[in-house]
């Protein structure tokens, strides 16, 4: 299954390699990035402070704010002459996060994405339809270069015009679909409207979905609707882009490519490592990047790590699908709630439309949250009794999953705004 022998390193080999690369990288950043030089000098850190992998905890964290403070190129370790690509993340607030790549970085990145694709069973025989936006966002180009390296035939469809995309998928016989999971669902729905049965009329067999959180329930729905096996992968532009981690065919967590990254899980409040296997914030250190070495970057993604050997043979740590982001976490009536928990309940109920939205208001001193779910044929009964029973059932399931009462409201079809990129799941009207 694995093409790359590095996927089969032992835990000891991995840690030795990581320690070695980390030491070199500290030296490299110290000499080439003013920001790190100052940061490391201040607390007396240098290469010789690292003697085992645990010593990484001596290093300070890097955050999104550090990117903002050094906007646009302040964290780059090479002169612009050596930079061959620039990407940026969509900053919802303030300046975007800018990242740069050397020629060698692009090569490393392509290798990583090729490994992710390979482990999702994609080969050079596949025709891959990429419906990620091509642009500053790392998703489009990242997958493109990686899959090209793998030797697959790429259809760089980019985003927009769903009907045309479906025509291309059908006419060119795409076998692999690359996009966000919510857009994949949109494709399935539009295909149905066009009278196309994706399972019979399209050749798709694999979906590589990412760039937004999605649940196991949505995975099943996508697999059912499109007749595919859906794989998850993980990445973030600050660390590289896609290619940080990806699922193997066992689909029991995403293998982190630990020969290129060090992953830690910390308690987001204290910054201390959590116990093995517990949920916390994922922290990533890069080991092989030239243009933008990164130390202990706080991803804000909440997940957990499994370091047991996988059935596929690889010992690379597996991360769960992030259950949310530290900044996505909603506190409703004092209880921490992630949208993914709500999604899990909704998608577990037969016939629930994947289009939902959580609206939070403050009424007096109390939080009032309601989950809007679009009606569809399965959710509409002609009599009140059944209609109410359905709503009661959903409400009861939500209460047992969340620990607090959040009610569902069924709304008319298409009344929740559709997204081409990331789905807008939360409307928080509280002014706190």
């Amino acid at each position, binding site marked *: 299954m694995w093409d790359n022998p590095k996927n089969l390193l032992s835990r000891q080999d991995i840690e030795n390699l990581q320690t070695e690369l980390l030491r070199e990288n500290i030296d490299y950043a110290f000499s080439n990035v003013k920001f790190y030089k100052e940061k490391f000098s201040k607390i007396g850190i240098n290469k010789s402070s690292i003697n085992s992998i645990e010593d990484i905890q001596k290093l300070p964290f890097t955050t999104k704010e550090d990117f903002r403070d050094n906007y646009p190129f302040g964290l780059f370790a090479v002169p612009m002459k050596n930079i061959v690509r620039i990407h940026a993340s969509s900053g919802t607030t303030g300046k975007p996060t800018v990242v740069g790549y050397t020629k060698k970085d692009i090569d490393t990145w392509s290798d990583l994405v090729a490994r992710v694709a390979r482990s999702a069973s994609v080969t050079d025989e596949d025709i891959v339809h990429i419906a990620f936006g091509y642009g500053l966002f790392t998703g489009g180009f990242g997958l493109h270069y990686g899959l090209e390296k793998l030797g697959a035939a790429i259809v760089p469809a980019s985003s927009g015009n769903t009907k045309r995309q479906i025509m291309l998928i059908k006419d060119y016989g795409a076998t692999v679909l690359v996009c966000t999971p919510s857009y994949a669902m949109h494709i399935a729905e539009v295909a149905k409207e066009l009278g196309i049965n994706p399972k019979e009329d399209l050749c798709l067999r694999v979906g590589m979905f990412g760039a937004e959180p999605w649940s196991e329930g949505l995975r099943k729905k996508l697999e059912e609707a499109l007749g595919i096996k859906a794989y998850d992968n993980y990445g973030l532009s600050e660390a590289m882009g896609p290619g940080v981690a990806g699922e193997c065919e066992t689909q029991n967590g995403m293998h982190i490519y630990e020969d290129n990254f060090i992953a830690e899980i910390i308690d987001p409040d204290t910054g201390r490592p959590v116990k093995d296997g517990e949920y916390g914030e994922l922290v990533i250190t890069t080991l092989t990047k030239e243009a933008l070495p990164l130390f202990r970057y706080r991803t804000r993604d909440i997940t957990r790590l499994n370091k047991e050997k996988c059935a596929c043979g690889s010992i690379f740590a597996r991360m769960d699908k992030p259950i949310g982001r530290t900044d996505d976490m909603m506190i409703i009536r004092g209880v921490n709630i992630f949208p993914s928990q709500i999604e899990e309940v909704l998608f577990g109920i037969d016939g629930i439309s994947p289009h939902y939205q959580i609206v939070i208001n403050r009424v007096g001193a109390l939080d009032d949250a309601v989950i809007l779910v679009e009606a569809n044929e399965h959710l*509409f009964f002609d*009599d*009140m009794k059944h209609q109410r029973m359905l709503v009661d059932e959903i409400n009861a399931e939500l209460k047992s999953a969340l620990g607090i009462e959040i009610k569902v*409201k*069924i709304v*008319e*079809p298409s009344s929740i705004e559709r997204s081409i990129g990331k789905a807008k799941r939360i409307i928080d009207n509280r002014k706190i």
Partner: protein
Amino acid sequence: MDTEVYKIDQISVFIENKKGRFFSVTKVLKEAGVNIRAMSLADTVDFGILRFIVDKPKVAYDALMDKDFIARKNSVLAIAVDDECGGLSNLLGIITKEDLNVEYMYTFINALEKKAVMLFRFEDIDVAIEKLLSSDVELLNRDYIKNV
């Protein structure tokens, strides 16, 4: 005997309980050239279920689905009731005696002279037809409703 002739097509539509939605539905039907024969609204604070008997059920259903409403087609029975004291009560007595479960009912206004017409949704329409035909109840067939 063909009992299908007693099944009157009904269209139900899900609407949110907010201003103008009721009107939007009737507008869609009007634009599709559909005439509403009878109508009832069951509603809660959040949502409502609109039910119609129309002259062209298929056209009505397609027009609504096309405009992104969620609609459902099913069948109800039309029963004529003497427009005099105790008429409805007699009918309900028969329905209870026959042990038929009514999911809901509503009136078909001005349908017949000296008689009121009630529309019934039964849990099991076939059993209801069979039992009502063998009792003293005036079950109206499709054509009757069409000509009203």
